[in-house]
């Protein structure tokens, strides 16, 4: 059945991918969902119709989602209130009457886009629905049934919403809605231990949804930092594990009550099963161990100057001199030096570890930075014979850079031959991406904290615009 999905006007490119992932998480099998736009609506519209096999599935998806404001069974739609009335009257009684009975409680909510509606006007609109035979009692606080009257006015692109050529009015019964209360609870502002690249709560939850996190699953973040991605995974019931090359970040934090562990304790979440210091370039997993993680979710360190490090700096940087040998008496407290870890190598290692360590059907979810001038980038996402790309969702960070959330699923067993084939692919990939190496700005533009990322790029054109206004993939 077709349901109307109303999205929060955020992260436009992430919205359908989230719904598709949640459908799969809750048992939908099939080749992706069927979508359609309301007539005359722009693809960036907050309204989309989605075809779902059951109301139960629609509700579960909505309840778990971050970007869905609500999912509705539409009783009627039209370009005017007259058209709407006719449509609602024509909607079959057996779909309407069970929700209008005398022993039920209900509430009608009016929502408008592109225009602010006064209280009076809203009340008038509700009264205008008198042709629907509501028999139940009104209950504003906790009604059994919520009905929505949603109106988009005809406006151009200027007022902060996507252009709509023609006014549309929907009337429908709410089937489910998102729990955005999660976000204030987990917002970074309230987080005990924070780092400069901590993942904001909304994105961390979205990543956990893309990764199909659910209770009892084991989720790994090889670049765990302050643990903000794993916090979201733990909220959805997963067992978590994290590694980082920086011992101060992963072990010490800012003291006994301000570290990665305390970030879980703060929300009453179970502590990670393991935190360790390890280099993703030389993962310390025993060779016989395979297919143990249900998902790998991470925000890898990109860029050269401010980006990732890997073990063995001196040896790497000065390739011509003898490898540096650590004197025996200095070994215990020795702090190994590290070398730069470039984007393509970092991604190659990530795919290799994921290919080996994920269960079949397990998901790898990670950010990947792209230059926006690069028109042909569709073909430039990293590939691996063990994986199929499920979705790519772009978030534009500045006039030049975007980050793309890639979701991949493991579809092939990891073998030595495959690892070798992937290595060859990686070398080709690296050829094409050498330019990234020269670009030291990438890291700061991609991983600046969310509130400052636009101004941080020094792009005056964008920094003047307040956040949240309609800017397509900027929101």
């Amino acid at each position, binding site marked *: 059945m077709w349901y109307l999905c109303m999205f929060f006007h955020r992260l436009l490119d992430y919205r359908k991918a989230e719904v598709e992932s949640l459908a799969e998480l809750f048992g939908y099998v099939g080749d992706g969902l069927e979508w359609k736009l309301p007539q005359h609506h722009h693809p960036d519209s907050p309204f989309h119709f989605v075809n779902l096999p059951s109301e139960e599935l629609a509700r579960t998806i909505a309840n778990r989602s971050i970007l869905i404001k609500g999912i509705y069974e539409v009783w009627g739609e039209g370009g005017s209130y007259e058209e709407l009335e006719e449509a609602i009257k024509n909607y079959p009684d057996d779909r309407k009457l069970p929700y209008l009975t005398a022993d039920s409680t209900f509430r009608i909510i009016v929502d408008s886009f592109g225009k602010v509606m006064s209280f009076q006007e809203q009340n008038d609109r509700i009264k205008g629905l008198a042709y629907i035979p509501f028999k139940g009692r009104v209950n504003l606080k906790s009604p059994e049934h919520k009905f929505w009257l949603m109106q988009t006015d005809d406006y151009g692109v200027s007022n902060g919403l996507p252009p709509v050529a023609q006014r549309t009015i929907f009337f429908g019964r709410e089937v489910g809605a998102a729990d955005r209360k999660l976000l204030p609870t987990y917002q970074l502002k309230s987080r005990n231990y924070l780092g400069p690249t901590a993942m904001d709560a909304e994105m961390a939850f979205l990543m956990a949804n893309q990764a199909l996190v659910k*209770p*009892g699953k*084991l989720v790994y973040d090889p670049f765990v930092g302050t643990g903000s991605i794993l916090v979201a995974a733990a909220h959805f019931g997963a*067992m978590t*594990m994290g590694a980082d*090359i920086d*011992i101060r970040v*992963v*072990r*010490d934090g800012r003291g006994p009550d301000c570290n990665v562990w305390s970030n879980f304790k703060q929300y009453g979440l*179970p*502590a990670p*099963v*393991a*935190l*360790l*210091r*390890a*280099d993703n370039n*030389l*993962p*310390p*997993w*025993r*060779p*016989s*161990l395979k*297919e*143990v993680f249900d998902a790998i979710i991470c925000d890898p360190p990109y860029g050269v100057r401010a980006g990732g490090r890997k*073990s*063995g*700096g*001196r*040896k790497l940087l000065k390739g011509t001199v003898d*490898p*540096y*040998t*650590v004197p025996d008496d200095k*070994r*215990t407290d*020795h702090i*190994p*030096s590290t070398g730069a870890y470039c984007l393509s190598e970092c991604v190659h290692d990530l795919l290799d570890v994921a290919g080996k360590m994920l269960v079949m059907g397990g998901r790898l979810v990670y950010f990947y930075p792209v230059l926006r001038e690069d028109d042909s980038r569709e073909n430039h996402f990293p590939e691996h014979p063990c994986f199929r790309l499920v979705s790519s969702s772009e978030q534009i960070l500045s006039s030049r850079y975007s980050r793309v959330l890639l979701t991949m699923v493991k579809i092939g067993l990891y073998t030595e031959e495959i690892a070798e084939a992937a290595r060859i692919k990686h070398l080709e990939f690296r050829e094409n991406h050498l330019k990234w190496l020269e670009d030291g700005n990438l890291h700061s533009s991609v991983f600046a904290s969310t509130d400052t990322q636009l101004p941080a790029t020094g792009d005056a054109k964008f920094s003047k615009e307040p956040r949240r206004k309609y800017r397509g993939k900027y929101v």
Partner: protein
Amino acid sequence: MRLLTHNMLSSNIKGVTNGFPLLIEVEKVIEKPVDFNPDFLKNMFVKVDWKALVDASRSLGYAELPEETPESSVIDSDDFLRKFHHALLELHLEEGALVCPETERKFPVSKGIPNMLLHEDEV
């Protein structure tokens, strides 16, 4: 560090062919209760290296696990699952070291976190 982690790690020093299992040098062991999750345990049961887990739990002073790799049917026994749960998830090496079986190189464990980073001449 829980023994589940110990069971997954090996010494990956260049040239080492048999870096697993790492020996355990104990300075401080602590126990922390963890919610009992049978599904997760059943999942992990088929992944763990049994002998490594038994030896590791003994070095931490817990001798309740059977020496021989149990038949897969034991996972239906609540008594077994509880012991497995305790050994795998509730025993922690808080301070100590993991020792490479081939080179005796020590990977320190401090504040419960194993430091698996290699030195320049080990990569």
